[in-house]
């Protein structure tokens, strides 16, 4: 059963098309992610699905309700965690939750029980009477997740859920999100531009410039690249480029690096190094990452800055099991 169905959803701001006739479905119980660089159209899409922005064209159904016609029913079916914090800093955690519960029509008799349930889920039950102003960024995000759940929505929307959080907090937050999926079979729709975060998803839609350029499981997307990625770095990049072209080796150039797709990196690499006459500074080989997938599809990289990206990949690879 599909919790979300999107058909040719489009959003234009004047002449600019932010979201260009995208279509996809999200099945019950899956974690579905939109992966793409900043400005790709992720937040615009999620805002349309959450009825905060009317679509220019196309349709979308959440829980079988239309986002253009059945606004209140759609809203009741969604738990939304925004990219920017949206808690009331002057209220306590409890008060924030009660406010939400009332607006969403949670029965009065259920308040206490549900508040305890969601707060315990994110380990904030002890801090429920504290004013939110004193919470850390990670705690606030956890409270927002708890808040998004209190009315038992059909799907949880997470717009860049770990943006602005340090790597440890990010990992911790994902523990809670995955717990939700395991224990509550929660359907989750999220957007991110962090590749290692996208690895947690059951399926990913890669979005660039308002269009979906690929849609599949992370494993399949990487497998589609067919093999390993060999990266060659050289300061003599002009000559390097000429030589690679002469050798009829296909590559994608990124600054001073040349990314080469190959079936068996271990055997290809020594052959390449023997053949190359131009001197190179560095060579590395790795299994394809989602960034490689994105690069291959669009010719550009998702990464923000190289340094922080490496940090995140280290944090991601060290202890986390990927789904």
């Amino acid at each position: 059963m599909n919790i979300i169905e999107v058909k040719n959803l489009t959003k234009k701001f004047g002449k600019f098309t932010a979201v260009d006739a995208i279509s996809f479905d999200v099945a019950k119980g899956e974690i579905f992610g939109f992966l793409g660089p900043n400005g790709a159209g992720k937040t615009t899409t999620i805002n349309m699905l959450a009825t905060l922005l009317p679509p220019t064209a196309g349709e979308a159904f959440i829980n079988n309700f239309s986002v253009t016609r059945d606004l209140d029913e759609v809203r009741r079916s969604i738990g939304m965690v925004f990219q920017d914090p949206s808690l009331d800093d002057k209220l306590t955690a409890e008060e924030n939750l009660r406010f939400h519960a009332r607006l969403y029509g949670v029965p009065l008799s259920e308040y206490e029980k549900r508040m305890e349930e969601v707060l315990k889920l994110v380990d904030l039950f002890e801090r429920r009477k504290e004013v939110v102003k004193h919470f850390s960024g990670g705690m606030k995000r956890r409270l927002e997740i708890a808040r998004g759940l209190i009315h038992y929505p059909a799907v949880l929307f997470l717009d860049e859920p770990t943006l602005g959080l340090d790597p440890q907090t990010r990992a911790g937050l994902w523990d809670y999100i995955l717990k939700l999926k395991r224990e509550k079979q929660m359907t989750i729709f999220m957007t991110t531009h962090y590749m290692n975060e996208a690895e947690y998803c059951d399926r990913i839609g890669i979005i660039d410039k308002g269009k979906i350029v690929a849609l599949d499981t992370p494993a399949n997307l990487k497998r589609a690249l067919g093999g390993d990625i060999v990266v060659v770095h050289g300061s003599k990049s002009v000559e390097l480029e000429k030589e690679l072209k002469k050798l009829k080796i296909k590559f994608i150039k990124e600054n001073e690096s040349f990314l080469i797709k190959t079936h068996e990196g271990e055997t290809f690499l020594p052959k390449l190094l023997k053949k190359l006459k131009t001197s190179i500074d560095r060579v590395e080989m790795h299994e394809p990452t989602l960034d490689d997938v994105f690069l291959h599809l669009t010719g550009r990289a998702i990464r923000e800055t190289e340094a922080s990206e490496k940090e995140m990949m280290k944090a991601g690879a060290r202890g986390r099991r990927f789904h």
Partner: protein
Amino acid sequence: MKFLITIYTIWQRELIRYWRDKTRIISTFIQPLMFLAIFGLGLQSTLAAGNFGVDYLKFMYPGILAMSVMGVAFFSTISTVWDREFGFLKEILVAPVSRSAIAFGKTLGATTIASIQALLLLVLAPLIGVNLNFTVVIELFGIMLLLSLAISGLGLLIASLMRTTESFGLLMQLLIFPLFFLSGAFFPLTNVPVWMEWISKANPLSYGVDALRQIMLAGEVPAQVLSKLSVFNIPVDVMFLVGFALVMIVAAVAAFRKKA
């Protein structure tokens, strides 16, 4: 029912926020006190010597009450722009609730806070030498409620049209200060240049001040003197305030639904 619960929830949040912000509560008391102390006491002797006819402090007091109502009502609704800028408004807008209910909740919240604040300022009456009895207090409270409603509506209307808090400074200068000072709180509007008369006649605060002053000073000051200082009679004041409040609230709800 859902409509009322929404109004109540939004209303309650406004009150909790007000109550938690102790600095704000204190400062909204300090401003009227400062005006009374500085202008009131400062001009008291000078004006007593002339043909003003009434103790300046007593003259100013109702005006200061009205000013306090305006300040609090405005600030409470303008804070919607803060909500927008700091994200909480999104949380309200993504909820399955009526936009009109949200607008009413905010307006009523601001009205409640402004009225109670002004009511509390009445404790100064004995210090100023004004005698109050129960009926007078009720009548005064009625005017305060009306004025709060009117200003809250205006505030919400403006807040719905404002995108950021940056324009707030300009708003203070161009709107709030003129409304404050051309309301009859500081000097009678019965003998002023024509342009001032026109502005003050469009200013809801003038009607509030006018009504409050007439109710409060009815027993304190000779009727002739009082009528020379007053612009309209009380029923006219009340009618204007009711009309203004209705128009503002309707416009505010409409703007909120469209813009938010």
